[in-house]
């Protein structure tokens, strides 16, 4: 994680987009890289956070909310994309909007090999399921890319995911002294 990125709180840029788009529902299985964003959402009185047992629930939830006239976004870790695959048929075949934000693990600086296979698969899996993906190059770009993705999703009834690379999310650091 470079210092320019780490000092920039990209989560701050996302809440205004949620409000502009009228997205009132956030669903999630948390990831460390989303902690700051999730905290802000929990604290916002105009946003309802639904904690999921598994990520595909968030896809079905977003479709239900849409059918009822509201909008929901799914925040998850890259591993969670694998849990969503079959449920992505639902927004796809019904042409319902579906918006996702994915914190990537298993990329640069990762220490945990168990994160790597799904991380490597995420772009291909999403492409195979017809999901449009956005990859902000820097933390500064996240808000703008997320706004673009939201615009596309709700205007055209497609499914899109914004992938936040691990060099932006940062790496998980264990304090081995504490663990001993």
């Amino acid at each position, binding site marked *: 994680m470079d210092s320019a990125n780490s000092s920039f709180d990209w989560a701050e840029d996302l809440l205004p987009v949620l409000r502009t788009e009228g997205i009132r*529902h956030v669903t999630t299985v948390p990831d460390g890289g989303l902690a700051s964003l999730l905290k802000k959402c929990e604290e916002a009185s105009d946003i*309802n956070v*639904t*904690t*999921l*047992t*598994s990520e*595909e*629930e*968030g*896809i*079905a*939830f*977003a*479709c*239900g*909310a*849409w*059918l*009822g*006239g*509201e909008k*929901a976004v799914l925040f998850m870790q890259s591993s969670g994309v694998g849990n969503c695959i*079959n*449920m992505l*048929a*639902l927004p796809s*075949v*019904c*042409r*319902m909007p579906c918006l996702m934000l994915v914190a990537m693990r298993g990329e640069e600086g990762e220490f945990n090999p168990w994160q790597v296979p799904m991380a490597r698969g995420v772009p291909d899996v999403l492409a195979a399921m017809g999901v449009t993906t956005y990859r902000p190059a820097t933390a500064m770009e996240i808000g703008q890319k997320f706004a673009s993705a939201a615009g596309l999703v709700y205007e055209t009834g497609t499914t899109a995911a914004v992938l936040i690379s691990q060099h932006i999310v940062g790496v998980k650091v264990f304090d081995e002294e504490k663990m001993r």
Partner: protein
Amino acid sequence: MTTDCMLDRRRLVKALMRQRGDAAVVTGLGAPTYDCFAAGDSNLNFYLWGGMGGAAMLGLGLALAQPDRRVIVVTGDGEMMMGIGSLGTIAAQMPTNLGILVLDNEMFGETGQQVGLTGVQSGIAEMALGAGISRAFTIREESEVAELIMAVTEGKGPIVCVAKVQSGKDPVALPSCDGVLLHHRFRKAVISSS
């Protein structure tokens, strides 16, 4: 848990639909979708033909978006078991307007009547209670149907009602499987009358 499954699913669903009022109904793939269509088509029915495991969660999203409308999910035991964790998600959100009916034939009827897990050891109502759903129960007798229908259509949600139903062959009744059509007609009906 395993029992003699006695109730006629078509008759049960027909009786439920007579008392739905302006409730929005979401149906789980397979026989529950056909049962609800056979009871009479409505623009306020959203028929799932896939997304196995997602019916209850779709119902939750809808119930939170439409707090003043009753939302009823009618699904099968296999479909509910695939999304069983969602009962915990639903319990935490406490949607008072959400009623879930599980038509439990203790098998995967659609795929050739293989024995399902509720025909071995599992009880969906018991799992729902464990997930934190405040009211969940199972019925096996005709005499309990009226109470079940009241609970699904009017009981304080979230509520999970399980009906042990016959596994017999019902006449084929297939609604449209055009997802775009189903989406637009349902959303329009829900939003324009809310």
